[in-house]
């Protein structure tokens, strides 16, 4: 007795697998952006579902700001190894040292500096397509994003002139130097991501669960206190991101809802210690996921501006 019915996770999954396979079919040198965060964890499972028993036919790429949570890096490396994938890491530090990226005076966040590093890696490896875990429900500039998002030879997004995307027919044609960003999770919500992680029994970095951590108050958020600066021969990588004497400090029971790096991730007070707890918390949440991202608070168009410049 078969019931030809698919639930919402099945529908989102089959749509995403279809997109993964279109990438493998249409591009010569695709890459998958894997940060170790919850969205890209789903991407890896979808890649397994799309391509096993073969190898996943693309390497993984991560751009490090140098301010990562150590738990995330450990998880990222371990997971890539488990899957037998090649992991390419490029860092903002390298780009600063080589002059490929320059920090704006007074700016602490390295979020924008990821753009030249990502574009540099795309050029270095001649990637023609990068799969990312961005979702349309995250942010309103992303709500306008296509599954197959065309970038010109400068890596720029032109939101006013996007290719119409009709039925499930994706136009992957490029000229030399151009590339595509592809977002298989476009139609997923934060809730879908957690329900899928739970259903698939996927491991996530420990910082998504409740733990005790020292934080400080800045810009309406609780930011984690960065690790101590021990190597006095080098400048402090967290200069500007350390609590000032006037800023309130607190040891909290908290977790991350979304992960950027340590200086732009607000910690949320939470006792959630299981997937069910997290799902219940997301269901009851009264602020959006990106409400805890300092990088998006810069202005109403912060995301749009970064995307136009080549951000993922």
């Amino acid at each position: 007795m078969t019931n030809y019915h698919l639930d919402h996770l099945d529908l989102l999954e089959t749509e995403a697998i279809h997109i993964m396979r279109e990438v493998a079919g249409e591009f010569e040198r695709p890459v998958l952006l894997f940060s170790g965060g919850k969205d890209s964890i789903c991407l890896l499972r979808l890649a397994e579902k799309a391509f096993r028993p073969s190898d996943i036919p693309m390497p993984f790429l991560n751009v490090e700001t140098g301010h990562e949570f150590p738990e995330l890096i450990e998880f990222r490396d371990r997971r890539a190894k488990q899957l037998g994938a090649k992991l390419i890491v490029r860092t903002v530090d390298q780009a600063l040292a080589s002059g490929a990226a320059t920090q704006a005076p007074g700016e602490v966040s390295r979020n924008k500096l990821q753009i030249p590093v990502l574009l540099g890696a795309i050029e270095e490896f001649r990637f023609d397509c990068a799969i990312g875990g961005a979702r349309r429900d995250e942010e309103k500039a992303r709500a306008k994003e296509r599954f197959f998002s065309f970038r010109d030879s400068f890596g720029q997004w032109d939101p006013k002139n996007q290719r119409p995307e009709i039925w499930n027919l994706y136009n992957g044609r490029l000229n030399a130097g151009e590339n595509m960003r592809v977002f298989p999770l476009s139609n997923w919500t934060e809730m879908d991501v957690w329900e899928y992680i739970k259903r698939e029994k996927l491991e996530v970095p420990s910082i998504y669960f409740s733990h005790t951590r020292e934080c400080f108050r800045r810009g309406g958020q609780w930011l984690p206190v960065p690790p101590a600066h021990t190597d006095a021969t080098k400048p402090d990588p967290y200069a500007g991101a350390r609590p000032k004497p006037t800023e309130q400090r607190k040891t909290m029971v908290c977790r991350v809802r979304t992960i950027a790096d340590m200086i732009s991730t607000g910690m949320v007070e939470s006792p959630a210690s299981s997937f069910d707890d997290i799902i219940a918390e997301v269901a009851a949440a009264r602020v959006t996921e990106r409400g805890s991202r300092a990088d998006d608070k810069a202005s109403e168009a912060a995301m749009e501006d970064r995307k136009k410049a080549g951000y993922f």
Partner: protein
Amino acid sequence: MSVVATSSSLSSRPVVPVVDILRFNTCGSVDDGKSTLIGRLLYDSKSLMEDQIEALERSADITGGGQINLANLTDGLRAEREQGITIDVAYRYFATPKRKFIIADTPGHVQYTRNMVTGASTANLSIVLVDARAGVIEQSRRHTAIASLLRIPHLVVAINKMDLVDWSEARFNEIRAQFEEFLPRLDIKDVKFIPLSALNGDNVVEPSKHTPWYAGPTLLAHLETVHIASDHNLSGFRLPVQWVNRPNNPTDARLHDFRGFSGQIAGGIVKVGQKVMTLPGGLTTTVKRIHTHDGDREEAFCPQSVTLLLEHDIDVSRGNMIIGLEDLPGASTDLQAKVCWMHPRVLQPGKKLWLKHTTHSVQAVVTEITHRINVTTLEQEPAPAGLALNDIGEIRLRTSRPLVFDGYATNRLTGSFILIEPGAHATVAAGMLHAPREVVRPEDGDFVI
């Protein structure tokens, strides 16, 4: 070989109730209350978050003289907020305990047809907004006609701003009658009329106390309950091959002979042991295994993504199609289709383009523009000057290699295509194929197309 039956894998799911996804689109111009309606749906179903409401208030203080503008929720780009317009399709998500919803929100001006076609192509349902004061206007007809051309199964006519006509039942009936005059010419199976006020929230999420004469559901109640399970085509098995799954240098000896054909089922049902045909080539073989990463299955159906292993070693690659032997498709290089032209440069006969159909890309030449369709009246008009941006017309095409296809009315996935211009590779048209004049014939063992 491990076998996991579909039914058992469904029942082993977590205890959350099975919810499905309804995709709908709204299309309208600046003043008809579309953004207000979406804002109302999100707000009253408690799908807006505090920081989104705060952001609305913040932009109201800066630019809106203190008045909250719900359109700022959907207009995500700076140019849109500056000019007070919507540029492109925006997608919104919300959920109730009964269903998840994906809204494709499209602007109603300039690029109307192109955006509407894009937003509606994946929709189960389309909402046409009518201003109760204005009644049925040209745009209402265009919208309904496009929904019909794209074969969206369900239509809701939301008669908005009822508060401005004193909640008049007579006015509601009058507009309904105007609509019903031209509905018989269209291909829409299910139409619902709902009187509402998006601004005040009447009959959007909460029933209105002003419409005792209306016995139907609120808009949200209708969206939650409209029957969409049969919207996928379950007759005529079609698997457009996306990718050949062939492990390189497997360490596991059992994988040496693994050769699977991966794709998303675009129609019908497939079972282990079933006879199938591969096209082009027309060779017949049997399904040996239906592989998924979650274990093998005994059967699979549209729109699942699977990998088929076949009994015989047949040359099949991306762009080929594996089909069942019943409800056969057509295969031809000579095609007739309705197209929506989406590029500023006029389409004229002789134009060479790329055509992408399922997973298959071929070169195509437009041999004839038969006529243009007047989207307001659905009447055919001559098109001596070709098809201009946003025109819908009837064309003939010749392709470099045969397409294996169904009529769009039978199968949206194997009956649709896009056209891509060869220079900058812009997507310039959406096409809907006519039913094939003849189907492939399985009895010809040496059938070659």
